[in-house]
């Protein structure tokens, strides 16, 4: 006996919409079972994991702060993934954006440079990320090099360049040789939206990127072109869409948004250059992009959900003394359930009993 997946002819939109909900419920049931087996209360865990972060103003802010870089990077990645181009190197583009933007922050440090510094930094961040994203795109269009490998390997190059800068030329001369730069001047710091809060303007950039992307994908020729290039490359060619320029364009967009996320995070959150400036946002964003099914609104929701699992996981450690491993296991269960629910909506599972035949 074996399973067979056959595509469903007509997928009802209701089923498609309900699939993630079912996935959530299933993953909470599985996680609840694990927690119950550990001798803890699953209800208290749900409370700490979900209810509290979503009702407490402080946690809500933190949720937005954490979701901002994820959403920015993931929305950029959705351009690539829609065109069936696999940019795995957003982490590197994020770092390169941070490096480009921080250069200006450090170059103007201690001077009277005014309001133009911050916008210029953000632009440099976008340029840095875009240029870095164009390297694998160029290698692919010019020499046919697999973009998965090059974009991924360039991550390590970017991280080592950052490491070099933090330990070498950009090291704070008064920092007792510790590997970090001076803290940025106020003119180079992305301010919070509300004076007392932690949510900075990066959240607005992410929202804007999502809205603009929704319009581009739904209402423009470029959006149609991406979809066609991804779904039917030959048809796209016949339609006169150049695969080369599509590749370059989506990598530039994706890299630029990752670069923006990088400089936003450094100037809004960290406030200085350190050898490590990301807990793996560029990779987590790949998950976010797929959880959101490459749909702009879906990505917004997915970024918030993934951020919630991080924040809920920390609360669970603090308030319930549940180990970190459980949080990570839960993230895995959630992703698996969402993907499985998607598959079950699009495909029918059949048990095939083998007769006496082949």
């Amino acid at each position, binding site marked *: 006996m074996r399973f067979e997946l056959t595509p469903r002819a007509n997928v009802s939109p209701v089923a498609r919409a309900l699939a993630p909900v079912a996935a959530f419920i299933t993953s909470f049931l599985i996680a609840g079972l694990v927690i119950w087996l550990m001798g803890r209360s699953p209800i208290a865990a749900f409370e700490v994991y979900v209810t509290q972060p979503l009702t407490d103003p402080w946690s809500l802010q933190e949720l937005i*702060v954490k979701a901002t870089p994820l959403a920015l990077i993931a929305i950029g990645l959705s351009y690539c993934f829609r065109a069936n181009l696999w940019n795995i190197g957003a982490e590197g583009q994020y770092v390169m954006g941070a490096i480009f933007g921080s250069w200006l922050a450090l170059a103007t440090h201690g001077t009277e440079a005014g309001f133009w510094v911050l916008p210029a930094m953000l632009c440099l961040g976008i340029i840095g990320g875009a240029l870095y994203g164009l390297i694998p795109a160029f290698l692919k269009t010019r020499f046919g090099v697999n973009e998965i490998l090059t974009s991924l390997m360039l991550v390590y190059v970017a991280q080592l360049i950052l490491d070099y800068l933090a330990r070498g030329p950009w090291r704070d001369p008064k920092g007792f040789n*510790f590997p970090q730069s001076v803290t940025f001047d106020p003119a180079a710091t992305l301010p919070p939206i509300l004076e007392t809060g932690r949510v900075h303007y990066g959240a607005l950039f992410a929202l804007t990127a999502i809205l603009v992307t929704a319009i581009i994908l739904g209402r423009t020729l470029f959006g149609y072109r991406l979809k066609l290039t991804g779904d039917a490359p030959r048809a796209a060619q016949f339609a006169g869409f150049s695969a080369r320029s599509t590749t370059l364009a989506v990598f530039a967009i994706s890299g630029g948004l990752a670069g923006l996320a990088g400089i936003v995070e450094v100037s809004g959150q960290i406030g200085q250059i*350190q050898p490590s400036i990301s807990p793996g946002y560029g990779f987590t964003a790949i998950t976010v992009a797929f959880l959101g099914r490459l749909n702009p609104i879906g990505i917004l929701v997915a970024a918030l959900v993934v951020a919630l699992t991080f924040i809920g996981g*920390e609360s669970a450690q*603090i308030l319930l003394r549940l180990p*970190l491993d459980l949080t990570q296991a839960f993230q895995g269960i959630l992703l698996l359930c969402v993907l499985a629910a998607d598959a079950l909506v699009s495909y029918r599972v059949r048990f095939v009993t083998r007769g006496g035949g082949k």
Partner: protein
Amino acid sequence: MFSRTIFGVLAGAAALAVAAGGAVAQPKDKVKVGFIYVGPVGDHGWSYQHDQGRLAIEKAFGDKVETTYVESVPEADSERAIEQLARTGHDLIFTTSFGFMEPTLKVAKKYPNVKFEHATGFKRAPNLSTYAAKFHEGRYIIGQIAGKMTKTGTIGYVGAFPIPEVIAGINSYFLGAQSVNPNVKLKVVWANTWYDPAKEGDAAKALLDQGVDVLAQHTDSPAPIQAAEARGKVGFGQASDMERFAPKAQLTAIVDNWSDYYVARTKAVLDGTWKSEDTWGGLASNMVVMTPYKNMPDDVKKMAQETEAAIRSGQLNPFKCPVYGQDGKEIECKGNGALSDEQVLGMNFYVKGIEDKIPQ
């Protein structure tokens, strides 16, 4: 304990003093103590030892304390976790990695009534203390043992990152080895991680392949000493006693003993006597502890014990002057007969005889 007052000048400190001044310390019936760890509790090295300190607090005060920890907190994303502890009623919070310095400072400013303790950093505030241990004292002893035990004349060192604490450790190790074996050679490999058993193990194997037969490490997992054990070579445990991972290879281990300090600081909060301080403890204050010397001849063991006693009593300083830089020039002696604390804490040069370059 030393006071590093020179480091204490901070922007905003004055404003903070006013803010903190409003809350005069009161004795408490019960305290909540929180910990932020950079690695997993199960690293059997750095974070594991801090967690042993947490358990010591629980043991010492029973019902009067409640402890919490958050593990594997990325340094670039730690502010939220620290603030979570501060806003959930914790009275005393230990952040146990250098990279938590700026976030700890930020949160400390926001929560003037909560006491913070940051390990291995140099920024303080009225409600933020710093503490670190003089591991280089232990490294001088293991250097001497390595100098005696090596047959190939080449000893090795797996470093994490070229920050002053690690550089000072390498220098002290080499000066110790040189003091008993003038021709000894040292090879260093940088793992560029604090905790990554695979990378640490690879770094160790690279050293063993180059003829190293005594291995020291300044990374957190037992992988390097396990690699030495597998090849029939010897080495030293780091941060915690790693004998169970390498019973034949471990000559001794430099153990970070945070328990006494954590218990004392918790007591200070209970008594209402907590003050912002800077603590730099070594063998003498039991913050650095050597595990029993094993797998070595009696004369080497005796030498190690004598050196340990001499450092403990203050007779011997690993960085006693004259100290020569790699170029052979004497380093200016700013301390009393030895390099000053500031020179050790900001060390970014190798001593004469190390045939390696500090990555820049």
